[in-house]
């Protein structure tokens, strides 16, 4: 018994105590701001368009969402939005790659935001299969925060009128 105590004492004096466990590496990351979350959602949208995934696009919308397309046609409800994109992916959007850029995020309420930006579609094809040039447009979306997730409520893409002579 005395021998054990002696050994313990020697270890203590020599600094050979078992090392304290290293501080655990924190796996927590700073919570995303609402604007960052909205931007991340927009990136998801961009990816879904580029991969022609209508389901993934639908998942970004609330059930009661609506979309007014560039020609002014209303598509009401998540399913209608999905169907709209599915048709585009089987038609002019086939093989197209998207690039979305947010210009502004404006919170009209803490949980409601109006998002404006521009989009580019590269690689679109015409009805007769001919390649179309780069198509650029603008969008205005209204998103709502539900269960800590920002969801699209209204989507309003538009093609700005070209200035005369351009």
């Amino acid at each position: 018994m005395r021998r054990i105590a002696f050994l313990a004492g020697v270890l203590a004096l020599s600094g050979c105590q078992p090392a304290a466990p290293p501080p655990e590496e924190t796996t927590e990351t700073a919570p995303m701001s609402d604007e960052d979350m909205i931007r991340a959602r927009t990136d998801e949208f961009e990816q879904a368009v580029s991969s022609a995934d209508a389901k993934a696009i639908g998942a970004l919308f609330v059930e009661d969402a609506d979309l007014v397309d560039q020609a002014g046609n209303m598509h009401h409800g998540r399913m209608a939005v999905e169907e709209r994109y599915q048709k585009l992916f089987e038609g002019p959007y086939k093989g197209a790659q998207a690039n979305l850029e947010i210009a502004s995020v404006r919170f009209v309420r803490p949980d409601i935001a109006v998002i404006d930006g521009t989009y580019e579609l590269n690689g679109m094809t015409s009805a007769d299969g001919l390649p179309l040039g780069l198509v650029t447009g603008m969008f205005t979306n209204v998103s709502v925060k539900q269960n800590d997730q920002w969801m699209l409520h209204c989507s309003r893409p538009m093609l700005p009128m070209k200035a005369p002579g351009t």
Partner: protein
Amino acid sequence: MENKVVRALAILSFVALSAAPLLAQDATVEQAIDAIAQKYTEAWKAGDAAGCASIYSDDADVIDFMGVSAKGKAAIQESITKTLGTYPGSSIQIVRSGIHPVSADVVVSDGTWEVTGSKAPEGVPTKGFYTVVVAKQGDAWQVVSGRTKVAPEMN
């Protein structure tokens, strides 16, 4: 056609007004939206830019069908002044296609617009469609965001 003319017209910002059927919602919201529209169209007819701009919140923004934006009520009024100067004596017809409630005090309204009664410069669209976001500020409903568009075939 001059860009100035196009931009002046382009800044048209609209609210809903029609007898179109609405989604199920509080009738008072519908009435409030219609009252705003009435105010806008009457002010337009009178050439009253300040009256038109009064439907907007101080921090509202608009983007016209050429993609040009105006931020704040003062900038919006300035744009409307140019538009009214380009089309003296004109009227504006607004037909609402729907109101989409986002919350109890925020709605999105869509519809079509048409300017009549004044000779439009060649190439300038006199009709198109619009989207506005209308929010309740205190006791009053105000337009916080307006977007006017023309269909691609109108381009």
